[in-house]
Every structure is written in structure tokens, then in C-alpha cells.
């Protein structure tokens, strides 16, 4: 948190965004042949691809739950997705993110319908520029819908944060590095319930309330983009395709 770095110029953020403005988001549905559901998502310079397999028999057997399906999200960063090459395979950070995303998705998937099954959600981060867990969860929700997995709702994620004493939406790379707080959340848009919530940094209670409100607003914007992408695939004629 280097105070010499300026994160605002002429009242705008470094990339020209307003405080409550998201980075550009692009979602493609059904981009993979083998997967049962898939999604490619660009969120600013983040690039994420997700494949869903299942419900299928959970392996190894001792992981099976006789009453419901387990949701097995695996968040993985490609070795070339970051500045310094990342050693392949899971590390502590990716295993924690896999866990919180799995828990958030479990909340909306009708897991009781598939006892002993696993629903495998493979999230690959191809290019990372701050906010990959929100991008990954958002893309995972779309891939689950594409796979026809029954869900109560299509969950969606977005972050807010604090830079130079201002609460802003969806931190970019520099803002994440030199800002003073990051608050990624995921919600069920239909109910507004909060499925994922993490915070690092320093916020007063008032700033936290403001950031949470802003992140929720962001979630609803992203939710619309999700739904449009799904519709485009399943009702292509409505878009003149």
C-alpha cells in the first residue's frame, strides 16, 4: 500500500472508469465440445474458462454423500496467467478459493436430487488481472446452467473496494495492489442472499456498508450479462443469429 501511487487522475480511475463502473465483461456459453456445460468469460483483462461435468458417481467412493451431490469446484491458474510463471498445480490460495466457490455454488444447486454424485466445476484462469475469484464463480454459474444442472438461481459475484479513501466498484490490478481494501462477494440475485463474502484491508463500518451495497449493485449488473449470454445461446434467433 504505497502512498506514492496515484489511483485517480482528473477524478477518474486509472483506466478511466467512474467509481461505480465495472470493467468490460464478455461471456460466451458452450465453448467446449467435451464438457457438459462450459463458459468462457473475459472480465477486464481477466480470462477464465469453465467446464462442468456431472452429476456423475463421485470418485473415490469415500467422498460420496448418500443424501446429496457434492459440488467439487477446482480453481486453477494456468502457469502463464500471471507476471512471474506460476508453478503448476494447486497452492494454498487456489485451494481456499476452490473451497469458498464450492460452498457458494452448493447453496443454489439442488444437490438433494443427486445422492452419491459429484458435480465437477473446473475453473481455469488463463489471464489474471485482479478479481479472478469473482470472474471464476460468475463463469461457473453460467457453465452450470449450460450443463442443465438444476439450480434455485444463477449466482453471481462482484467485488467492491477502497482506494485513496473512496469506495469503488470492481478493483483493477493497480487498485488491488495499492488500494486499502477489497470485498469480493457472491449473491443469489433472486433473494439477495450473500453466498460468498471475504474482506481484506481496512474499512470503517460505514465504508463497509457502502462497499457491500456497491458490490451488490455490481452483482446485479453482472447477473444481467450472464442471463443475456445464456439467452443468446438458447434463443439465438432473438438476436438475429
Amino acid at each position, binding site marked *: 500500500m504505497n502512498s506514492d501511487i496515484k489511483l485517480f487522475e482528473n477524478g477518474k480511475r486509472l483506466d478511466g472508469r467512474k467509481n461505480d463502473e465495472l470493467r468490460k465483461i464478455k461471456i460466451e456459453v458452450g465453448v467446449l465440445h467435451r464438457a457438459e456445460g462450459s463458459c468462457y468469460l473475459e472480465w477486464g483483462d481477466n480470462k477464465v474458462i469453465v467446464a462442468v461435468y456431472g452429476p456423475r458417481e463421485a470418485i473415490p467412493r469415500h467422498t460420496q454423500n448418500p443424501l446429496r451431490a457434492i459440488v467439487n469446484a477446482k480453481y486453477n491458474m494456468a502457469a502463464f496467467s500471471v507476471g512471474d510463471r506460476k508453478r503448476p498445480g494447486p497452492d494454498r490460495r487456489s485451494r481456499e478459493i476452490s*473451497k*469458498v466457490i464450492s460452498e457458494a455454488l452448493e447453496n443454489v444447486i439442488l444437490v438433494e436430487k443427486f445422492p452419491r454424485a459429484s458435480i465437477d466445476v473446473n475453473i481455469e484462469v488463463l489471464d489474471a488481472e485482479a478479481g479472478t475469484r469473482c470472474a471464476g464463480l460468475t463463469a461457473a454459474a453460467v457453465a452450470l446452467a449450460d450443463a442443465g444442472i438444476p439450480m434455485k438461481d444463477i449466482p453471481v459475484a462482484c467485488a467492491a473496494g477502497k482506494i485513496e479513501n473512496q469506495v469503488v466498484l470492481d478493483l483493477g490490478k493497480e487498485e488491488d495492489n495499492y488500494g486499502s481494501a477489497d470485498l469480493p462477494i457472491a449473491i443469489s440475485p433472486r433473494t439477495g442472499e*450473500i453466498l*460468498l*463474502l*471475504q474482506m*481484506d484491508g481496512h*474499512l*470503517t463500518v460505514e465504508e*463497509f456498508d457502502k462497499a457491500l451495497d456497491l458490490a451488490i449493485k455490481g452483482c446485479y449488473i453482472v447477473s444481467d450479462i450472464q442471463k443475456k449470454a445464456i439467452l443468446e445461446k438458447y434463443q439465438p434467433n432473438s438476436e438475429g443469429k
Partner: protein
Amino acid sequence: MTIIPSIKRDFLVKLAEDGKRADGRKFDEFRNIEIEVNVISKAEGSAKVKIGNTQVLAGIKMDIGEPYPDTPDSGVMITAAELIPLASPDFESGPPRENAIELARVVDRGIRESEVIEVDKLCVVPSEKVWLVFIDIHVLDYDGNLFDAASLAALAALLTTKVPAERFELGEDYPLPLKEPPISCTSVKYNGVVVMDPSLDEEAIAEVRLTIATDKNGDIRAMQKGLNGSFNLDEIKKIIKTSLDNGRKIQELLYKSAGK
């Protein structure tokens, strides 16, 4: 996680409907907390924390090593947690699993992101030699709410840590430079009721968990939601309030126990 027969769940839910908990606590009340410092002679700093029957030991070791290339003037902190099979019939030996990793990550972030350790004062030769601070969490007895016990043990151990400068021929030993630490408080929800500092049984039936670290100024310094349930906005705001109240009390106890 332990499987609790549904009869036990029914019992706890019924109690909760009457506004009660199995051990007589109020919903927003912690169990008794004991903090004992300097319990390990080989460590640079150490503390044993009991929250009810949960017991966690934290030990701090320091060494000289290389800084990270992107922070050449800063010391390095490394946190590890072991859920050793000593502490619970359900913990297995072997490499750390998801729960131990999440525990270490939450403790680590609580200290790292709040900049409790003044790492910029732990440089010996820029780009070459800095102090490494190893925080090792050893769970001894697991009866619920490891996050808070582990965080508190780590903080108490840090507060009593002496930088072993003499051993490395770098002058006299001195206290590890620290800022005011935030205090972590964990709540869980089951059947619509939110309780602070869950016991093992309460954890076993919890649908959703929220850990909040707050500081002396009443600011929020970290948050981590867990489990597959959900919160609404009101619940989160209430948990912030009870976390602030408990956090203040625990902070006092921490300073007193560390002799500060």
C-alpha cells in the same frame, strides 16, 4: 466434520428457540478465554490459548533469509497450521487438508493484511537479508472455533516475541515491532439463529459461518464467510456489532496477558 445424530441437532435447535445454548451462554457470548504466554523455551515467542475446551498453541521462530523479489526491503512472514491428530479423533495425519489450509490462510491474512508485523522494520541488508517470521499454529484440543483461538494464539505469541538478533550477531535482542492487532470473532448460524464462538456441537450443525476481525478503533480489518449457507444484510450488520463488542474485551485480555 463430526456427524451429530439428528436428536442432538433437535436438542440444540429447541434450546435456541427458547433463546438458550447448551452450555448456558447467551447467543453473543464467548466461552471463557485463557491466554498463557512464553510457554515454549525454544521459540522466539509463544502462547497457549484456551477458549472453553479448545486449546491452541502458537510458536514463533525467526531466521535470516532472502526477501521476496518484489519487496526487497521487507521481512517475510510464513504461517502454517497443523490439525495434528492429537487434537481430535477426526483429524488425520498427512499433508494439510482443506480445513487446515483455510485455517492457516485466515490466520495469515488476518495478520498480513492488517500489517500487524511491521515487516518494513525487519530488513537487514536490502534485497539480500531480511528477518523471516514463522508462525506455527499447533491445535492441541479441538472443541470448536479454531479460527478465533488460532488467531488469538498467534497474536499473543507475536506480542511476546523477541527478535533473536544476538544469535545472528546482529546486536541485541529486541521486541518484534508490531502494530495494534485486530481481533477475530466467529459466528455461525443454524435454524435462523446466529451464535458467537460456536462450540464443537454448534459448528457441527452450522449452516453458515462468518469470521470478522475488528480493531481498537472499531474498524473492520478482515472477513471470511464459510460453509454453504447464506446470510442476509441484517444478519451481517448484527454480527459486525457483536464482533466489535467481543473484540474490545478480547483485546484487553490479550494485552493484559502479554504483560503490556
